[in-house]
């Protein structure tokens, strides 16, 4: 089976410094791929390049085998959705805001139809936002805003979902809920989910595979067991760590080694 989303030799520079350097990765339908790495490693830049928001200086991003820069923006947006980390907000109601996710399907000039409203409803329910549908998004809490942004991406009914730090500003309950939803979307709905996370233990829990980035390069890509080793993480982040096992599911659990109290 061909990869749903693939990056080949991606290169990007800013002020002479390489932000992305020969980045190579594939995401298959039905899997969650987490992008991890220290601050400034290029996670968000890579996500923007994958979302066709940033044109790489070299290399290609392809969606089901087609170069995204040879496609019009709207067909891309029918297959690929991005839930950005920070969003500028305007006092649209949650329902109107999520309804924007239907534009790639409905077009920009026609009013939403019954199938659009059904998709919006489904997205609101999946993110637990249905009770807040009438509220202006500017009056939501930070966590509710993150869920509204995710709901808008889901309303696009994409095959590839890109999530930029989806758990930032969420309390424990919604961290669990959002990461659980990401897994469900991949495993039950067969989406390709790419997710940037700075919390390595969240990444270990949610991802089928991890890509470790540092200075714009992919240092390692593989299962949590292959990537989350004490040597690799310690060297990349510059902090000695110890790796043990999650008591319930056996995934790696990273603990920084610090002086005893």
């Amino acid at each position, binding site marked *: 089976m061909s990869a749903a989303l693939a990056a080949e030799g991606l290169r990007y520079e800013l002020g002479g410094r390489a932000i992305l350097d020969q980045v190579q990765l594939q995401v298959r339908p039905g899997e969650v791929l987490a992008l991890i790495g220290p601050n400034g490693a290029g996670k968000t830049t890579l996500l923007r390049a994958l*979302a*066709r*928001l940033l044109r790489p200086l070299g290399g290609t991003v392809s969606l089901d085998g087609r170069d995204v820069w040879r496609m*019009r*923006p*709207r*067909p*891309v*947006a*029918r297959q690929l*959705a*991005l839930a*950005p980390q920070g*969003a*500028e*907000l*305007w*006092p*649209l*109601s949650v329902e*109107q*805001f999520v309804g*924007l*996710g239907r*534009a*790639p399907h409905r077009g*920009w*000039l026609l*009013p939403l139809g019954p199938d659009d409203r059904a998709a919006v409803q489904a997205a609101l329910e999946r993110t637990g936002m249905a009770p807040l549908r009438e509220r*202006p998004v500017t009056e939501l809490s930070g966590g509710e805003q993150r869920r509204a942004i995710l709901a808008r991406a889901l309303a*696009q009914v994409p095959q590839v979902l890109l999530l930029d730090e989806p758990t930032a500003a969420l309390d424990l309950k919604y961290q669990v809920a959002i990461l659980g939803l990401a897994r469900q979307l991949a495993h039950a709905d067969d989406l390709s989910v790419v997710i940037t996370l700075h919390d390595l233990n969240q990444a270990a829990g949610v991802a089928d595979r991890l890509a470790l980035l540092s200075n714009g390069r992919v240092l390692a890509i593989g299962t949590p067991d292959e990537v989350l080793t004490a040597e690799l993480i310690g060297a990349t982040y510059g902090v000695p760590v110890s790796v043990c096992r999650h008591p319930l599911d056996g995934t790696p659990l990273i603990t920084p080694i610090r002086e005893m109290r």
Partner: protein
Amino acid sequence: MIGRLRLRPAIWAPALALGLVVAATLSLGVGAVWLAPDQVARALLTPHSPDATATVVTIVWDLRLARVLLAALVGAGLASAGAAFQGMFRTPLADPFMIGASGGAALGATLAILGKVNLGSATVPAAAFMGAMLAVMTVYGITLASGANSATALLLAGAALSTILSAVVSLLMLMNDRAIQEIFAWLLGGFSGRSWPQLAMSGPPILVGLGMLWLLARPLDALTSGEETARSLGLPLNVARGAIVAAASLVTAAAVAASGLIGFIGLAAPHIARLFCGSSHARLIPASALVGALLLLIADSVARTAIAPTELPVGVLTALLGGPFFLWMLGWGGSR
């Protein structure tokens, strides 16, 4: 933040339309000759019946109706253009003149008044229209050519060009002091002496631009979430922004050509409309248009009567009455 009273379109749309009809009827009745609403209604609805006096019919149809319609259309146009720019630039401070339309119109009108350009019988309005469109196209062209193609770049280029153009207008006024009065009266804006020819000239472009802006409601909604989000939803940014600028500027240029520079309606009407219809442009554009029409109709009626027989410039009145009202609405004057 402003208190919110959300109403359904089924309530506010008929209420505003009714308000508009009432205001128009009253406005048709005020002036040098005062007419009761029932006289106005009879003259409007049954001008050929024996009950309608010929003078009343002439006053309503030949002297006042075109002016009233023009004031309503100009108000609707400026308000919807303001709403579109506030959404596109993501700032509550935006008004229709943000990217050079007023400076261009002022220069065009000034040159026409000074006899430097001649565009036929309606030379001042035509020159104002061309000036406004040319200025906006220049600003847009500079922004496109510079490569820094963002809403912020558009705003900055607009501010720069507006400053240059108004400096040129000031210079021309200084050098031609006999025409200062006429130029100044035009700059202040108003409907004095406007009738069917001005309505025939400015009405159609205002209606076309208004329709385009309403059609662009969803792209406007997407742009309020930021340019990057709009792009990730597949919006072709340049096409959408170009269409919004074109539609808003068509409306603004046609409005300015008809009535000079009338400030404040384009800034305030969208804020008033948001109080009851929310911020989604599918509702905000028509609601702003109705509010703007109503406000300018009322302002023009007051301008005609407050110090009769002299007319006040409507632009001065909208600022004098609208400014304090707007401050109060923002919550600085009353309880919060």
